[in-house]
């Protein structure tokens, strides 16, 4: 796995007040790969994900030591423009969360915020993003309809289209399928495999089968520690650490 390292965590620790949510985590994530983070609730996998777009900044009392390198640059270093960083690193949330706006306005949101307002400039980007999220054919005649009227899996793909419009190169997914049924989950997973050709994807999931199906590399976390990470096929069939074995075979907790 000596591929182009897009993301590197170097001895990253994160504290909520005195509580250590991440303990000296080190990990590398390759470009145009899917990296899955698994582990029981509260193990710090979502926290780790959120250090990448600095969403933890919004919580008071968070302290960070160590480094998070994206394209070789420490995003916690001085002079990081957090707004720019978040445009480069998109995020899909657990529950589909379109704004109560039309389908079109949802996809255009990031563009408008960035100052792109002319309809003729925005229209092609909207189409391209919806196509990339495999939603164009379903919604092309209903762009003015409320996004909240779409079925849940289409809403989630709309959220993906919304972040693609901003042209990120990394996509973070925080349990993106936990609100979806198996068929809808399948569609989103297929989409992820397609997106990986162009984007670096990091996904947090509770669903071990999902990690096994789609990810190239998996990291198993427990109580803020990165217990083990490696190629998904290897980690799932031949885990090195006893705790990983226990978790994978369902003997944890």
């Amino acid at each position: 796995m000596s591929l182009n390292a897009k993301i590197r965590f170097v001895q990253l620790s994160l504290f909520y007040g005195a509580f250590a949510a991440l303990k000296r985590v080190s990990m590398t994530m390759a470009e145009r790969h899917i990296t899955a983070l698994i582990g029981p609730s509260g193990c710090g996998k979502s926290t780790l994900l959120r250090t990448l777009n600095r969403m933890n900044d919004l919580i008071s009392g968070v302290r960070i030591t160590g480094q998070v390198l994206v394209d070789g640059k420490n995003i916690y270093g001085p002079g990081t423009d957090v707004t720019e960083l978040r445009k480069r690193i998109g995020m899909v949330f657990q529950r589909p969360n379109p704004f109560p706006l039309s389908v079109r306005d949802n996809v255009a949101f990031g563009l408008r915020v960035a100052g792109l307002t002319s309809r003729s400039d925005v229209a092609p980007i909207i189409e391209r993003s919806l196509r990339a999220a495999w939603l164009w054919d379903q919604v092309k005649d209903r762009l003015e309809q409320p996004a909240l009227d779409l079925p849940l899996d289409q809403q989630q793909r709309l959220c993906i289209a919304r972040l693609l419009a901003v042209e990120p190169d990394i996509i973070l997914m925080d349990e993106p399928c936990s609100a979806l049924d198996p068929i809808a989950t399948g569609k989103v997973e297929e989409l992820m495999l397609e997106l990986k050709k162009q984007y670096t994807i990091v996904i947090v999931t509770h669903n071990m089968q999902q990690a096994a199906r789609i990810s190239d590399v998996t990291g198993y976390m427990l109580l803020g520690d990165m217990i083990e990470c490696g190629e998904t096929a290897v980690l799932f069939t031949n885990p090195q650490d006893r705790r990983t074995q226990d978790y994978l075979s369902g003997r944890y907790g």
Partner: protein
Amino acid sequence: MRLVSPKWTQRIAVGVLGAATLATLLILLFIIVFVLEKGLRTICWNFLFTDPQDMGRAGGIFPTLIGTLLLPLLALAVALPLGVGTAVYLTEYTREGRLTRIIRFGTDCLAGIPSIIFGLFGFIFFVTILKMGWCLLAGGLTLAIMILPTIIRTTEEAIRAVPYSYREVSFSLGATRWATVVKVVLPNALPGIVTGVMLSIGRCIGETAAVIFTAGQALHLPHSVFDSVRTMSVHFYILAREGISAKNAYGTAAVLIISILLLNVTTYWLMHRFIGRRT
């Protein structure tokens, strides 16, 4: 053994609650019908659009109609930006702490002060110390101070009701805090803010004491913000209090009720259209 079976307790509860609702509605309806019945006959084109004659004994109420329109507008023009700004600052830009609690406690206290106190303050500060005299501006500023707490608190509640996830998404798409406030928080809080504005307009329109103290009671059309005006409520109060004309007093009251009704209906209609487009 129970004295009354649960089924009967339930029936009695429903009956009592229903009766309370009915009583409220009937009282409200009675007042409206009573005023309209006494006043509706008086309302005609001339009553609405001509100047009063002989202190209001004859003629119309046109200047008071304009006064009732201008005074709340002026108050809102001042209080809305200040109030919404304060609410946004308190909710989006500060962390919850001692200072925000003190500010919030302060606005709550302010909201409970009787309007006559605001009137007295306006009279001393705007009319006398700033030498504005009784005028539209002094009245507008006084009413603005009076409705500021309402606007701050209703806006704050409305902003708090906007799901946190909306903000999270907005930030994750590279929006700054300001862009998030303008594009996400305020549009979604709008219905709540409008409710606060409606309440405030209602208070302004119905206010008498604070208005007489600061905007005066001149019975002519104002030519600038430094002219004195009389609102319908004040007009109505003076006509009735000084026994000038009960008939015209009821007429004015009827116009007042109808205007408030129209105001409410239009706002709800606009809101439904607006929200219908958004969600």
